[in-house]
């Protein structure tokens, strides 16, 4: 009955095993894969929607996954304050499901971006970034074709004024430059939270920066947040 972290596997997810490994080995907590057809999330302390190409990215990334059976209990889980982290395709699914505002469009280059990037943490008052220092600079990889964050100006202004921008692309010194914002995201937005701060979407991959042997461990600063979630859930 002990609580654990769930990582949802959709058909076409490819970051699910990475996230599971990062949680089990990098962080060192109990975690399991959750099939996209499951409907009971009650024993989970947190849910991760992983990266990949759910349902082949057909129509729009996340558009089909949004209607997966698991999304109904996930919506309830999020509404009750349950921590949800959407990584890359997971972020796209959260916007398609309207759990986060806006959308993720094709990269402005029209190319798939697969490289390391710097992020500046803009908001530490979320359950996922509580362990970060204000304006902490993190080094994480990205891997996406549709990462250009879009929302209309009124929505962007509201996100800014309510502190829901969680992270922005930056250079190594924390400066917001055009070059650092490679995919062309509005206001360099790389991550967002909902109003309550329990649902966070992030385009870069913290689970792929959770082992020094594989290039870095900055992702653990985010993933270590699950300790507090497990402590509450037990």
């Amino acid at each position, binding site marked *: 009955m002990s609580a654990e972290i769930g990582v949802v596997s959709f058909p076409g997810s490819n970051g699910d095993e990475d996230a599971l490994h990062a949680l089990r080995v990098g962080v060192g907590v109990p975690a399991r894969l959750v099939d996209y057809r499951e409907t009971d999330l009650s024993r989970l302390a947190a849910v991760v929607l992983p990266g990949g190409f759910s349902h082949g990215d057909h*129509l*729009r990334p996340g*558009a*089909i996954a949004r*209607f997966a059976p698991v999304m109904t209990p996930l919506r309830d889980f999020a509404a009750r304050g349950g921590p949800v982290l959407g990584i890359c395709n997971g972020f796209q699914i959260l*916007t*398609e499901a309207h759990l986060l*505002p*806006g*959308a993720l*469009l*094709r*990269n*402005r*280059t*029209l190319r798939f971006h697969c490289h390391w990037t710097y992020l500046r943490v803009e908001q530490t008052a979320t359950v996922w970034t509580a362990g970060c220092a204000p304006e902490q600079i993190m080094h994480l990889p990205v891997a996406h074709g549709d990462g*250009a964050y*879009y*929302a*209309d100006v009124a929505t962007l202004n509201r996100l800014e004024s309510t502190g829901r921008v969680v992270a922005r692309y930056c250079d190594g010194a924390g400066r917001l430059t055009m070059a650092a914002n490679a995919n*062309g995201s509005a206001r360099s937005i790389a991550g967002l939270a909902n109003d309550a701060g329990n649902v966070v979407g992030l385009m870069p991959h913290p689970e792929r920066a959770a082992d020094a042997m594989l290039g870095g461990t900055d992702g653990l600063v985010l993933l270590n947040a699950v300790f507090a979630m497990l402590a509450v859930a037990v």
Partner: protein
Amino acid sequence: MGNSVDDGGQRRWVADVIVLPKPGVNDPEGESILGGLRSLGYAGVTGVRAGRFLQVTFVAVDAEVAAQAVTEMCEQLLANPVIETYHVEIVEEVADAVDEPDGVSGGGDG
């Protein structure tokens, strides 16, 4: 929706759905195609928006129900109202060609 097609009262419809990026939403694919047209010498081309064309075949009891159904499909799935607009045209399939989609699509090249 999704029941057997020869239920009493059900008629067959084909909806042509065009989905385009909303005005103001960045469309790098359209811009890229615009650049291609200009390279070909079409200096008068001032804009290209790249979207998606979908053709949905379905049954409904009448035109009003059919239109309502397609609107719901667009709002829920076929388009993302946050970033896209959609335009729908619905025609009823003729009864003597129901088993041969190529024969009724009007412009399909099979």
